[in-house]
């Protein structure tokens, strides 16, 4: 059962108009059971273990149990993602623990400016020079056949 929802922890994203895990799953797997108000993975065998549902759940209710058809029981890989870093805890079957901490972005969330501060060197729609070029390429001009 790749991703699964811990029933006790899931509150059905009560405060939001749509559940976070259902919003994010690229494969449309997580759904809310309207009766129990708990989410579940409707087809674990189509799960990529991409962890997007795990990372987004506000109550840490989603976990991943490695594919049982080739992963021995026991390991746990758990992320904690903030706006600029991610911390991973990797627990081995034999209990060994490892922790890793990586940056995930260098700018403030939401602030990606499309032109990156560069200007566009041409107004000509037929030229191969693209938006922000040649500035953003760091070149005096876009190369072509000699």
């Amino acid at each position: 059962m790749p991703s699964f929802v811990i029933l006790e922890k899931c509150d059905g994203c009560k405060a939001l108009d749509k559940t976070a895990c259902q919003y994010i799953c690229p494969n449309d797997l997580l759904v809310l059971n309207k009766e129990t108000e708990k989410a579940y993975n409707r087809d674990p065998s189509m799960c990529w273990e991409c962890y997007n549902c795990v990372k987004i759940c506000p109550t840490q209710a989603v976990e991943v149990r490695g594919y049982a058809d080739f992963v021995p029981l026991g390991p746990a890989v758990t992320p904690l993602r903030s706006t600029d870093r991610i911390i991973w805890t990797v627990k081995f079957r034999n209990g060994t623990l490892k922790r890793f901490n990586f940056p995930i972005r260098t700018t403030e969330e939401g602030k990606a400016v499309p032109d990156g501060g560069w200007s566009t060197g041409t107004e000509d729609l037929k030229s191969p020079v693209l938006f922000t070029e040649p500035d953003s390429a760091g070149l005096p001009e876009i190369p072509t056949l000699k």
Partner: protein
Amino acid sequence: MANFETKEVSTDLLIVGGGMAATGAAVEAAYWAEKNGLKVTLVDKAALDRSGAVAMGLSAINQYVGLRDGENTLKDYVDYVRNDLMGITREDLVASIARHVDSSVHLFEKWGLPIWKDEDGKYVHEGRWQLMINGESYKVILAEAAKNALGMDNIYERVFITEPLMDGDKCVGAVGFSVRDNIFYVFKAKAVVVAMGGAVHVFKPRSSGEGLGRAWYPPWNSGSSAYFTIKSGCEMTCQEVRFIPVRFKDAYGPVGAWFLLFKSRATTGTDENYMLTRRDELENWLPYGKVKPVPANLRNWLMMLEVMEGKGPIYMRTEEAIANIADKFKDDPKAFKKKMKELESEAWEDFLDMTISQAILWAGMNVAPEESKSEIAAAEPYFIGSHSGASGAWVSGPEDLQTGETRDEYFWGYAHMATVPGIFCAGDASGASSHKFSSGSHAEGRICAKAAIAYIVDNPGEPNVDPAVVEDLKATILKPLDLFEQHKDYSSDPDIHPEYIVPKMFMFRLQKIMDEYAGGVSSQFKTSKPLLERGMHLLTFLKEDSEKLAARDLHELMRCWENIHRMWQAEAHIRTILFREETRWPGYYFRADTPKMSKDWEVFANCIWHKDTGEWEMLKRPIYHIHDKL
């Protein structure tokens, strides 16, 4: 018919897909559209933040040419790609992407993607063309730039694009349905950028239970680009050039860092380094057998020869690679400890950024890479024209990269436009221009978007679509829901019914055909004319049965259409392997009846599905070089 509201959206440029290529297209299109008073709309089947092959993140940018610092030239890149693809490459397209890719990478950095830098402020390379990144949020960051450029009002998420919308021979949009509400969408546009990725689960995966979804390629890309372009009548190219990655076995964790950064070897169960002991085999694939680096498919092939002789398991010698590194530090234990800590973190980040399953598998098997080697294996075949495969639509190159010789064959007006007017293809959707990866796909999306805006300015006429055609499309697309409703009360098990087939079983049948007849894992990637003809025969029944797909809800309706898209990708593949009477990429597939590479086949094998007759036409296109003019 199921009760669905029809929503019509009129726009100028429609971008279908929301991955690397589409987010590049969005940023570029927004700029030129504003200047020309045009509207741009993007449609993705998932949430833009986490859709496509980069949904989980990546740990490397695989295409960076380094033109700014004179690290490489365009010619270097073209030579590399042509050699890796055994000569079958559109050099004008590869050069077109390579001259813009660095600019995409520089934009990523400005947008907030952490790219590793050395003490001198230079990018840290994994290999000659690859940059190391902290890429957990790679897709989130690119999506953000796309959203900021287009505005959320112009982005439709959770809409599955099913079919192209045609005005005679021109493409004027697309239709699809929401996977959240009962809405049938009709997007009318003057041009369309197709960027819906490649295809997986066309072939049977190695894993069969819970692990079915753990293909190397993400299960949500199901051949929609190929379907869209084939069905609209586009000429397709390299439909035989599937990709088989060799990765850590079962969880498919990346091996790039181990081979390139840590200089690890791979050996057989009896410690043989097959890249050395099987070196003579490379002579059979000249001139490509002698190029450096050895083409990906030939590296695969040497390993497959071992496996076919029963000489597995094949191991990545992580313990040896780390010991070699340690050896360099034998006089400085403190520096060694520091280096090891660094390497450990790099090795795990490589998994955690893009294949978390591999981290779970290593933790589950208590793998300490400094102590024990790890198994690697060839995965099942995938269609990913942006990576080391080449399948996709046949598109025009840019005018300024043509020579007198190429101009007649490779150029018809707008950069990266398919042979059907109004369709532009990027990333996995365009063919014969491999090795674009995440960054090059983004760059190609940008090229397409600018060219598409130019096309719209030149061809401002409003789309003309017969409402009856739209109604027909709607009925066809919703039919699986009707079929289920009509029959569901008959059987004790809604999955088992004589009148219909559910999408998952349909997918299993397709996978079985492809696996056994078109050279999947269980046939050791081998096939032949009689096998392919038999496969085609069985596929014909499947095509008939595709009319009997049934869906109980919107999610299953999407699954039905995903599998129809896969089926068309499969047919184009079988027909093209049959057409090319040679073996050119032995480590991708081996045609046992034509086991050698032939000079006569140093051409592109293309195909067109003619929508008026339903017939496939197979054709050869010549290979011309531009590399000595770059």
